[in-house]
């Protein structure tokens, strides 16, 4: 077993003269640790006999000593330098750098998109059974009914445009501006209300999409099918939308419908069953 692979075989193999079978034999043989030592011993001998070139070991040693000296100086000054080096190394790759830049850009962009609403709008919302009255910058007053949300722009509100977004139900009391600036209530239900200065109520809930005008004049922009339409309301008008988007105007004797605080109690007993169901859905919504 000891002489399975001879020195001559190995030399021949190093020089590229071994057959595939010999290579496999050497492979098996070198798995043993003492054999491997012998393998490298022969390799060293062979490289000594048949060198590709003669590198200057003395010069290399001098360079090495200089390097060690620098290392010990570095180590005493900044111990982390050595550890940080590999990381910097990989940063040098241009490909990697571009990827970093791109991903940072994408993250910024996405977070910008994601938080755009929060940045641009101030949101007021009410819980179930809660109403709140909001005084806007232009002096207009909005009473939010329960479970409703009003979004008001943070920047530029009252300067050029007055636009708010309503989800739910709210009663508006809009101040007329000296420059006759419009106040627009946008909804997510294919209609919006444009006014100058009046009092009115808007409800966007699925069960009773409606606008009620107390006094003054409002213009209603709505979508019927795919066409945009508009309608001018007079005081006391109640406009309701059915699920297909059709509009019905009714005259109501009692304009103010929203009664803040009423929703806090659940008294369904006196209500007709259909109304109760609607009321419950309103609470659930």
């Amino acid at each position, binding site marked *: 077993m000891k*002489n*399975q*692979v*001879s*020195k*001559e*075989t190995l030399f021949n*193999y*190093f020089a*590229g003269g071994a057959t595939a*079978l*010999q*290579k*496999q*034999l*050497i*492979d*098996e043989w*070198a798995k043993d*640790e003492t054999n*491997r*030592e*012998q*393998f*490298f*011993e022969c*390799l*060293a*001998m062979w*490289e*000594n006999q048949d*060198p*590709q*070139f*003669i*590198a200057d*070991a*003395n010069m*290399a*040693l001098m*360079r*090495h*000593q200089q*390097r*060690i000296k620098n*290392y010990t100086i570095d180590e005493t000054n900044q111990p982390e330098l050595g550890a940080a080096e*590999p990381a910097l*190394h*990989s940063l*040098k*790759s241009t490909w990697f750098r571009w990827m970093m830049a791109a991903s940072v850009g994408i993250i910024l962009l996405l977070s910008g998109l994601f938080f755009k609403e929060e940045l641009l709008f101030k949101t007021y919302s009410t819980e179930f059974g809660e109403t709140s009255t909001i005084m806007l910058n232009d002096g207009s007053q909005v009473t939010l009914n329960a479970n409703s949300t009003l979004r008001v722009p943070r920047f530029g509100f009252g300067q050029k445009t007055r636009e708010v977004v309503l989800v739910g139900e709210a009663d508006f009391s809009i101040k007329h501006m000296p420059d006759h600036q419009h106040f627009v209530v946008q909804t997510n239900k294919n209609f919006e209300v444009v006014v100058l200065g009046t009092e009115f109520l808007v409800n966007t809930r699925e069960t009773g999409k409606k606008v009620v005008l107390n006094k003054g004049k409002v213009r209603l922009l709505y979508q019927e099918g795919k066409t945009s339409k508009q309608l001018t309301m007079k005081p006391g008008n109640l406009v309701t939308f059915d699920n297909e988007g059709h509009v019905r105007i009714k005259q109501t004797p009692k304009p103010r419908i929203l009664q803040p605080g009423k929703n806090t109690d659940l008294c369904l007993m006196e209500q007709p069953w259909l109304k109760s169901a609607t009321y419950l859905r309103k609470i659930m919504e």
Partner: protein
Amino acid sequence: MGHILQLPQTKEIGQPYLEDKGEASRNLSAKVSIDTELFLRKTFEQDVDAGISLLFRQYYTMLCSHAVRFVSSKAIAEDIVSDIFYEFQVNKRYLTTTTSFRAYLFTMVRNRAFDHVRSEMQHTTSLDKADLIPAHRTHSPDSITQYEELYHDVENAINAMPLKRRQIYVMHRFEGKKYQEIADELHLSLRTIEAHQYQAMRQIQSILKAKWLTILGIIGLFWN
């Protein structure tokens, strides 16, 4: 089958020679090498700096000669070997190495050189960026003969080149001469030298890739 047949063959042919002079020279060389290793160990125990300079004198040149068979550039070979000596001292490998220093150093050099060839094949134009290739080892061959296999293939690929191209390749790559120097020396235009060098690189890569791609890293496929 071939394995079993091979054994008696080597014995029959190898033995007569081994008996008289081979065996004697082996014993002699083994003794010398054991003495060298022992001497190195003892020196390291007493004085690390003296040990390192002894290590350089003993192994540096042969390790460079070995590394150059893989990377075919004197400068890269010396860099690889120098790095390994540097790490050997900085990481105090002389305390933890259980094999002979010779086996350790050769194994390290072969791994690094192997890695270097691999990264060069992955990045087609990385010759000039050779120092950017990370030094860490990710994948080493599972059998010892794959190293020889690789440098033999490198050598054969170089030998297979047309003579002029090979001359230019060796001058540039192995000796590290600048294109301009080669152009002056061979009385050729700079463009010709560049074209030859480019062709030489392509040729070596295509020859090596055909055989080594799976071992040297499949990633190479996506890079080129």
